[in-house]
């Protein structure tokens, strides 16, 4: 699956996107755990619950299963307009 990062999350991960093994990361909770392990600085932002997730360009708040062909985006609150 493809994970995309935006704004200051992208600055923190230092990459725009990466491909992760969908056999090991089967749902969004598992993805969060993986991300905190790989990028410990994300922990405090997850704790404050300010980060937003989109699966295939749709906002997701609950813990859903994720699959090989999914595109998952992790980003901070928006500031367009």
């Amino acid at each position, binding site marked *: 699956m493809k994970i*995309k990062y*935006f*704004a*200051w999350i992208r600055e923190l991960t230092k990459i725009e996107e990466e491909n992760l093994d969908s056999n090991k990361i089967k749902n969004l909770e598992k993805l969060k755990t993986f991300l905190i392990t790989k990028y410990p600085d994300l922990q405090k932002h997850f704790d404050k619950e300010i980060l937003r997730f*989109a699966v295939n*360009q*749709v*906002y997701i708040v609950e813990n859903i299963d994720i699959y090989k062909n999914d*595109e998952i*985006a992790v*980003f*901070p*609150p*928006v*500031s*367009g*307009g």
Partner: protein
Amino acid sequence: MIKIQKEDFNVEEEIIKIKKLYSNIGAVTSFIGYVRDNNNNTNVQYIDLEVYEKMAYKQLENIIKEASLKWNLIDTLIIHRYGKLQVNDKIVLVASFSSHRKVSFEACNYIMDYLKKDAPFWKKEFYDKKNEWLINTN
């Protein structure tokens, strides 16, 4: 119509292009957002606007569909820029086209509210000596 682009645009031309397509439009409400030179008493030099383009199109299409049904709009236009924008540059244009004024005012306001809250764009403001990612609060 939705356009997500780096380039500037001409408001009048963009609105006329759509107006020309229909003779039953009696009202157009437009909102234009600009880059300000000051935020929280700090001089802004320029901004950098990032977008998750694929999602932005999807989200804005949804809101246009919703607004069109709710207010029976004839057409809707959203142009949102990204990239490096200077003070006084246009950031966004929302225009709602309808038969009567009340619905076009309401729909334009509704679309902007949604855009500020959910559309995946991020502004980074550059000041004299620092920079900062913004969060929309209203």
